Structures are given as C-alpha cells and as structure tokens.
C-alpha cells in the first residue's frame, strides 16, 4: 500500500474526506425529502434581490433549495476546509511532526515529494466532488424530484475548482513558511472572509463589484446551478491554483526545512529582550503555569483573542452600520420573503433588525465561533495531552483525574463566556453606533443562549475526548452532531415538525429571543444538557486508560 509518497498521502486523508462526502450526501437526501413536503408555490414571487442574497432562483423548488442549502453552503465550506487541511498538512505538517527529515532522507527530491503530495490532494478532492456529484444526481432520481433547468454538473465543477484553489493556497503558504498553523490559518481565514464578504457585499448597493476580489464569488457568483458553467470563472480558479502550485514549488525548494520546533511569540520576544524581560516574565512566566486551568488558558489565548476580536469587530461592531446602510433595500423585498425559507438561515424576518441579526450574526456565525473555541479547548484538553504524551507526566503529580477534567472544563466555560461577551459587546456597540432598533436586553439573552450552545458541544467534545483519548473523534463527533442537529432544526422549523424539538438549536433561536427576550425554558434545557455532559466526562476519564501513543 505504501508504495510511494503519493499513495501514503492519499491513505492519510481519504477517511475524513469519505466521511464528509457521505454525510453531505445524507444531508442532501434529508433536505430534499423535507423540501418535497413543503408547499413551494409561494416562492414564485421572490424578487431578484432575494435571489442574489441566498443564491436561490426565482423558480425555487425542492431540488434547487436543497442543493443551495446543503452543497452551496455547508458542502462548499466543508470541502474547501478539508482542502485547506490537506494543503496545510501535506508539506508543513510533516515539519511540525518532525517526519520531514526521514522522508527526504529517501532518494526523492523536494520537487518530487511536492508533486506527489499535490497529485494526491487533487485526486482526493476531485474524487470527493465526484462523490457529491453522484449523490447530487442520484438523490432527485430516487426521490422523483424534478431538476429541470438545473445543471448539477456545472455546480459541482465550480465547487471542485474552488476547493482546489483553497487546497493550493494552503499548500503554497505551507511550502513557503513550513508552518502548518499559518497555512491552515491563512486558508481558513480567506475562506471565511470570502464567504461572508461575498454574501454581504452583494447586498450593498454599489459595492457588488468588490465581491469579485474573493474566491467564493467565482464559485457562486455566476449561479452555475441555473446558468451552467462560467468558463471564465473556472479558468481563473484553476489558473490561480496552478500559479499557487508553482509558488509552492519555488518556496519549498529554496528555504531551510524546519526541525520540529516551536514558534516565537510576541511574549517570547519580550522575555528574551533584557529590557523587557521582567515585564515578559510577569506576563508569561508564573501566571500561566500556576494551575492546570491557567496553563490550559494560556495554550488557547491566541485562538480566544482572534475569535473574540473577529466577532466583536466584524460580526458585532460593523453589523450595525451595515444594517443601517442596507435597511432600505431589505424592506423592499421583505414582504416577498416566505417565513419558512428564512427559517433555514436562522429564522426571523429580514425587514426587522432582530430578524436581520438573527440571520447574519446569530443563525450560524455566532454558534460556529463559540464552537471553534469550546471544541478546540475540550478536544485538546484530555485527548490532546494523551496524543502529545504529556498526560502521563501530568498525572504523575498529586492531582486526581477529576481535578484535571474539572480544571480544563473551567477554562472551557470561561473562554466560552468571553466569546459570548465579545459578541454581545461588539453587537451592542454596533447597534448604538448605527442607531439600530434592537433591544439590548434581548440581545444579552440571545448571547447567553448562544454561549450555552457553544458550551454544550464543547462538553460533548470533552466527554468524547475523555472516553476515547482521540482528538480527531473529539472534534468530528461534536462538529458532526452540530451540523446534523442544526440542519434538522432548520428543516423541522420549515414544516413545524415535532422532531425539531430534539435539536438543541430549537432551544436557542426557536422562540426568537432577539424579539421575545430570554427563553428561560430553552436556557434551562441547554444548561441541563451541558451540565449532564460535563458530569459524564469525569467518570469517562476515570475509566479510560491513558493512551501511550498517538
């Protein structure tokens, strides 16, 4: 099996990709089943503004709604995210793990290694998109849903091209820097930025052209599902990918390889400079190793800072003025918006500030931001120390396993609270600056609820990590559960199905807290679920055998 760098690279990554494709195919099937049951005749009145907002055509029907909701948002983000992970991991990841030395000790040039890895990446991504295409063609056939006027092939050609672009972007950054964290960060950052930028810029009159600066535009901008392949856009994405590959080749061949080593943070520089050494020591030295909770906090302070700052500035502060500037155009087509459709994006009426915020900030972005922080901390808390083989040494100290779980859980809860507060503070300031008519008490209640959502899935991650000792499971299981439950809630709310109540997201936005204030019952449900999961983590870790090797 391991006959070459190519086959090993494929083998290292095919599993995650397969899981993603199968899950997306299942979600697509689920989505079409639900949309089929809804009366879609009301959609025919939708105006062009709405079309550009959510990318759903005037002749909306079950198939196009499902393609756009499942493949166009979740699917594209997940596939591009996997591509970023591959691109970042394939070259720079070997340096982080310290395996690059042995690899290049073999009679293979750096160019050969890079070509083999890039080929593996292209093969996997193309196969993954082919899988999505097959499911996309088969599902409507099985369900007997009409797809007339829709070009699934064009849609997936665009998706494939964008996915390749993000893979090569991360590969190029990783090949130049040798830092997989930087490569993944740049790739994910560009992905997130372009997703939101394209969505928002198209709503602001006169700014639509700016969307063309972002790669997401060349995936969705031409609406390939309805209009077929836009060859110019495809050529641009593929051409840029090829260029990035050349950049990767040059970068990888000309620089020094990194040995497994650590980065130098600002704090390190403060500490090493004699003038600022005392200050640096005070900031870093004793406080961050004073307890397990503080140590855990210091490991994730960078992530906390970035996520909180982004949420505070972009999703919070800027959203007020943005809303004020587009309020007029919102109102012009808000009457045409069917309530059920908007429910998919978090519910609410776009013509009111509460509805706008529910869709833009709180529907998907805020829960994702919280989960990024809580799940990262929780997954690394126990399973991470086991995979890094530091758990044995930590537990050689006179601290019980329960103390370790408890202290790490405290950090997760505290960080979740900080993110929740950052969202509140930023949004509240933005509301005040923009003069938006939004009740700040209701806003606070919504922020509490979204924080609980983040903590709930963080707690799930902690339990999985405690029981299995595997970081990958502690990330994938809660993320998968969140994806499934979020979709379930959205689809259920369209048809007022009883099973929506099985999803925790139902207790978050189900009663529209931005309009109606705190949903105490919902808060209680989320709190109880979180506490139960946290409590389960203690016995789970007591029972587990500490793993020796990753």
């Amino acid at each position, binding site marked *: 099996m391991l006959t070459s760098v190519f086959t090993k690279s494929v083998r290292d990554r095919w599993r995650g990709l397969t899981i993603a494709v199968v899950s997306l195919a299942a979600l697509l099937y689920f989505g079409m089943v639900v949309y089929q049951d809804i009366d879609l005749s009301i959609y025919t009145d939708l105006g062009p503004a709405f079309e550009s907002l959510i990318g759903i055509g005037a002749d909306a029907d079950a198939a196009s709604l499902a393609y756009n909701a499942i493949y166009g948002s979740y699917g594209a983000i997940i596939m591009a995210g996997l591509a970023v992970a591959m691109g970042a991991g394939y070259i720079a990841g070997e340096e982080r793990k310290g395996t690059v030395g042995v690899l290049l000790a073999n009679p293979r040039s750096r160019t050969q290694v890079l070509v083999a890895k890039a080929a593996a990446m292209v093969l996997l991504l193309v196969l993954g998109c082919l899988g999505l295409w097959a499911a996309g063609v088969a599902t409507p056939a099985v369900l007997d849903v009409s797809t007339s006027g829709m070009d699934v092939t064009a849609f997936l050609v665009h998706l494939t091209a964008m996915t390749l672009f993000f893979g090569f972007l991360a590969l190029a950054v990783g090949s130049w820097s040798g830092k997989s964290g930087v490569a993944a960060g740049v790739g994910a950052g560009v992905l997130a930025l372009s997703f939101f930028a394209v969505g928002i810029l198209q709503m602001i009159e006169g700014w639509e052209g700016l969307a063309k600066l972002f790669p997401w535009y060349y995936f969705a901008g031409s609406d390939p599902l309805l209009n077929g392949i836009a060859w110019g856009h495809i050529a641009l994405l593929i051409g840029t990918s090829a260029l990035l590959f050349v950049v990767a080749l040059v970068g990888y061949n000309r620089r020094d390889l990194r040995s*497994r*080593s*650590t980065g130098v943070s600002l704090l*390190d520089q403060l500490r090493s400079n004699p003038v600022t050494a005392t200050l640096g020591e005070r900031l*870093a*030295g*004793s406080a*961050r*190793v*004073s*307890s*397990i909770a503080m*140590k855990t906090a210091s*490991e994730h302070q960078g992530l906390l800072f970035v996520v909180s700052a982004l949420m505070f500035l972009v999703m919070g502060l800027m959203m007020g003025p943005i809303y004020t500037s587009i309020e007029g155009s919102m109102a012009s087509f808000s009457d045409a918006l069917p309530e059920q459709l908007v429910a998919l994006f978090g519910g609410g009426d776009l013509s009111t500030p509460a509805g706008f915020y529910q869709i833009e900030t709180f529907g998907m972005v805020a829960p994702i931001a919280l989960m990024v922080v809580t799940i990262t901390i929780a997954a690394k808390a126990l399973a991470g120390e086991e995979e*890094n*083989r*530091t*758990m*044995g*040494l*930590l*537990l*050689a*100290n*006179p*601290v*019980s396993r329960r103390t370790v779980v408890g202290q790490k859980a405290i950090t997760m809860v505290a960080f979740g609270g900080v993110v929740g507060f950052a969202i509140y503070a930023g949004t509240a300031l933005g509301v005040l600056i923009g003069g938006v008519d939004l009740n700040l008490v209701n806003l606070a209640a919504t922020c509490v609820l979204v924080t609980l959502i983040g903590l709930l899935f963080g707690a799930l991650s902690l339990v999985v990590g405690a029981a299995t000792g595997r970081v990958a499971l502690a990330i994938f299981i809660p993320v998968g559960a969140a994806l499934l439950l979020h979709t379930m809630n959205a689809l259920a709310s369209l048809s007022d199905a009883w099973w929506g109540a099985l999803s925790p997201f139902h207790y978050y936005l189900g009663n529209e807290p931005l309009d109606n204030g705190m949903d105490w019952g919902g808060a209680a449900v989320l709190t109880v679920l979180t506490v139960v999961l946290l409590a389960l983590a203690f016995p789970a870790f007591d029972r587990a*055998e*500490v793993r*020796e090797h990753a």
Partner: protein
Amino acid sequence: MTDQIALHTEGLTKHYGDVKALVDLDLDVRPGEVFGFLGPNGAGKTTTIRTVMDEIRPTAGRASILGMDCHAQSVQIRRRIGYLPSDLALYPNLTGKDTLTYFANLRGGVDWAYVSELADRLGAQLDKKVGDLSSGNRQKVGVIAAFMNCPDLLIMDEPSNGLDPLVQREFQTMMREVVGAGASVFLSSHTLSEVQRVADRVGIIRHGKLIALETVASLRSKGMRKVELEVGSPADAALFEAVPGAREVVVEDTRVQLSFEGSMETLLKAVAGTYELVDISTQDADLEEVFLTYYHDDVVNGRGESDSVTSGGAR
C-alpha cells in the same frame, strides 16, 4: 525515609486483547535500594510502570507503592514519588523553568535551591523552550522534575536516553545519593552497563514474564567468564562446544572466544590435549552475557519465540 516496601506487585497481569503484555508479575522494591528492571524492547517494562502509575489498569493482580494501593490511593502516592516516563514528552512551548514551575505548583513544597543545584549538576538549560532543546537536554528537564520533590520512590523508565556519558555518570551518582538517604529507585533499562553500575538487585523481564530476580553481586558470582584463546593451529569449534559449561563459541581461524561457566581446569585440559596454547585471557562476564545467557536458556527450553535471540538482539 521509610521502612515500607517501596513498590510491591502481586500477580500483576495486563492483557491487551489477546496480547499478554504482562503475566503474573510478583516483585518487591525494598527501601534504600536501586532496583534494575531489565528487558529488551517490548518485554513489558513500560506496561509495568504505566500500571503502577495508574495510567492503565491491570487485568488481574494488584500493586502498591509505599504501602498504598496504586489505584485507590494514587493521588497520595504521587505526592511521594518522582516519575520519568519513557520517551519523555513535554510541553514544547514552555521553557524548562516554566515546565518545572508548573509541576511544582501542582505538587507544592518544592525547594528551588535544590532545583538549581540539580540543574547545575546536569548542565540543564532551563531558560530555553523545551521544544527547541535537543532530546538529551529535554531529558535533563524530565530528570529534574522527577528528583525535585525529594521523593521516597523514583520510578524511571529508561532515563538515560539521550544523555551523554558524562551526564549519565552524574545522573547515576544522583541516584546513589538519594538511595543513600533512604529513598528507593525503580529503574527500567535495556542499558545493561548502567544497571550493573547503579543497581543493587535486578529483575529480568521477557515476553511479560519475570524470568530472573537476583542481586547484581550474585549474578556476577555465577562464575561465568568470558575466555579468549589463541591456539597454534586452526581451531575446530566442535571441540570447544563439547566442553561442559562452554557457550557461544566463536572461532576465527586460530582465535577462539567463548563464555565459560565451571572449573578452568576442564577447559585447559580439553584444549591442551589437541592444540598448542599460545595465549589465554579471561574476564568476568558482565551482566550483558549473563543476560544473554538467560535468554538463551529461555529459548532452548522452548519457552520463547525464536526472535531477538541472537546475541546482538538484546542490545
């Protein structure tokens, strides 16, 4: 510091599915001794240590440290022991000093003057990030972490990995010092010379079973010798192999090497009848040969598999 048995295991057994990593292990580490735990890679040394450290749980049997149950009282135990895991991993983003401060905070009551003394003796760099240290320098941080709270029992899994010979010697001196002060050391190793130098008693483990338990002195006094002969004409291995007590005969033209256990007269008589004896030198067998001999027996008696039997295999 204490008269209690430092480490005690009774029928300690650990299975991973069908793999019997540890079978019915009975051993005692007495107060004030260095106990060497010898075995080749994969013999079950680390499994034993991880079980007594409560990182993994035994399939059967029990273990206690300083009279306390390894599972039920593991937190109290950890106040009084120092531990250095095999293949040490630390937090790469912390400096050595941060790392030790972290563990000192979790533990309480660490004397920093003693820590600096240990760091000086080992030549440890505590102001650099652990991730940027060589493996030997990283190991020094681990050694300090194990010693710094003046434990009653030190459990160390192949501690000399990566340390240069000079530092190894200093490290061995440190072990003898703490044992002199009444503490005990449980030292797992495949470096036989190290165990020979510092240990009082040795347990040899293979395929999860303890196959010998003796003092270093009595192992040596088994009278096994390494003999080198130079004879006047090309030698025939069969003749030497026929001598009772002779093992591992290697013949290179007129030079003969063998391990020999028994009266030297038997050997000399057998040789003198056939060859002209040009030169002979003997030396006490070191633990290594004794060790290999045990394995050899183990295999001849059909209890072991045929891997790792060759004399080089256990290094």
